[in-house]
């Protein structure tokens, strides 16, 4: 018998007592009312992300900026540094830029989370990972209150990255310290609808 069949047979015989099916209660909360922009801002700042209300503010001082191929032209209006468009660039090239600018798929206010699913303006996963600074644009209508509201807005089988603040660790005495392997600076630009 191959391993697959052997494991499935073991599991089936382990369930010989036929445990009864039970309903799954889903009476937990799904929505959150109130000022979601304010809540998101509060949660982002709590986890040491920087929050801006205009892209220009966030890009000030950045010399080389990586962007996905479909970056909206108006995002770069007034940006005077060098722009590097991602066209299957090598990891070494990604490591040379100062920052990367992308959009996102959804933001979750209650947890201060930005989710990328490889959709428009987001690029592939490596471009938001290797550069040391990530500037991410969130449009107000992309903000939801809670986690259950976010999932239906995402493409389940595309690669997803959920980001809650800059790279951090709790490994030393269980205190959160920012800045390990991922981008050490996270700038979030919240644009009004």
């Amino acid at each position, binding site marked *: 018998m191959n391993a697959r069949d052997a494991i499935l047979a073991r599991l089936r015989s382990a369930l010989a007592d036929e445990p009864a099916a039970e309903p799954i209660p889903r009476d937990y909360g799904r929505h959150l009312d109130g000022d979601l922009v304010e809540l998101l801002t509060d949660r982002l700042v709590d986890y040491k992300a920087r929050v801006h209300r205009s892209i220009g503010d966030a890009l000030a001082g950045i010399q080389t900026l990586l962007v996905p191929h479909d970056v909206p032209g108006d995002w770069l209006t007034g940006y005077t540094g060098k722009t590097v468009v991602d066209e299957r660039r090598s990891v070494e090239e990604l490591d040379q830029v100062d920052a990367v600018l992308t959009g996102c798929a959804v933001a979750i206010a209650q947890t201060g989370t930005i989710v990328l699913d490889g959709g428009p303006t987001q690029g592939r996963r490596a471009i938001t990972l290797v550069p040391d600074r990530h500037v991410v644009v969130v449009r107000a209508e992309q903000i939801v209150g809670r986690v259950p509201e976010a999932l239906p807005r995402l493409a389940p089988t595309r690669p997803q*990255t959920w980001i809650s603040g800059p790279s951090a660790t709790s490994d030393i005495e269980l205190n959160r310290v920012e800045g390990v392997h991922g981008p050490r600076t996270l700038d979030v630009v919240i644009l009004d609808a």
Partner: protein
Amino acid sequence: MTDFPAAAKVQLAKPQLRANLRHATHTIRDKRLRVVGELDDWEQLREAGRAIKADVRRRLPELLIQFEEKATAAGAVVHWARDAAEANRIVADLARAKGVDELVKVKSMATQEIGLNEALEAEGITAYETDLAELIVQLAHDTPSHILVPAIHYNRTEIRDIFVKEMHDAPAGLTDEPATLAEAARLHLRKRFLSATLGVSGANFAIADTGTLVVLESEGNGRMCLTLPETLISVVGVEKLLPSYTDLEVFLQLLPRSSTGERMNPYTTMWTGVTPGDGPSEVHIVLLDNGRANVLADPVGRQALACIRCSACLNVCPVYERTGGHAYGSVYPGPIGAILAPQLSPGEHESLPYASSLCGACYEACPVKINIPEVLIHLRQRTKHPAGERAAMGLMAWVMRNPRRYAAALRSARLGTGPLAAFVHKGPGGRRVLRRAPWPASKWTVSRDAPLPATETFREWWIRERS
């Protein structure tokens, strides 16, 4: 293997260890309580989490087949491993076929359980741990002592010393500031990440209806290992399945708040097979049994398979707080280890179900409501008790089956303990207790007081007063 009482004694004699553990577990307890308190539907989420995991167990074979089908259709190669040796063989053969002699790893309990690093080492392949705590443990030539934070037993000064001694590229003048230590780890691993061709991971969740794997992490080392290498191998315990993508709405709330006490962990990565132009071009998944079918076969014990490895039960456990993880002698320490380890490998770790005061703090903290005390008692009943204890219990049962025998036994017990009057103390509530009894009762009194029979039973009092 050393049993828990002996190993615990060794650990308890280390004051620095106890101070480190006390500090760390109390920090995380407070954080967890704060973020859990922010959600007014926490109990509903726990109940949903418990019920989803019960459903997974009940439908495990069909969900695994569904997962395999979906992941394969998305371009992943699914392997099955009956035990540790088979899983290690699969990973080593894949690494060989790629011609690599080193790989980067993101922290995973499953690969630790099967001893993957050691198995690869024997084949001349070096596995580099990239999680900060795993790195500390690897540099210190030590073993992990906690599910989530394997280096919880070290404080910042000790970590600094390990870096200075063992990390060849440690920055000069390294201080014990946690931010500086994190920076040193970043520099140490960066080149390795950017040039790695093979990554190995576990998974927090495997989604049956999409074939998706999910990894939660903090540092970005996970994203590095899961995104940059050309080939990715993930070793996943069969119990990690969730029926549906939608179920993540429950678990992505339960897990971060229970484990690191954060509203959300910094990074979560989800991938489904291969996505051309984004991430690894070759994705392997090793579905691992390694004793899980044994656990599933026990109607009481099987609930341990609901565990999502958050480690909240370790952090609240009064026993773990004092002994640390090494005393358990198992990859899975703490309360969950005490019920999981003896079930995963029957005949081993038999002392672990006794490594608990049955206070129930673990059950209360568990985000998927595993009734750990219930399983502990169940497993205690299953293990073979010492001959003396069995004889005593048999005699006791015989005495207590008959009221005359019972009354007579109480009378003689009172007479028999009379000469011990000199040793009698007043215990809690004014009860008469014995602090130190002669052998063989000394085995009991070495760690607890022995209550003495009352000077008069209720029946005797009733007859004297009312008849």
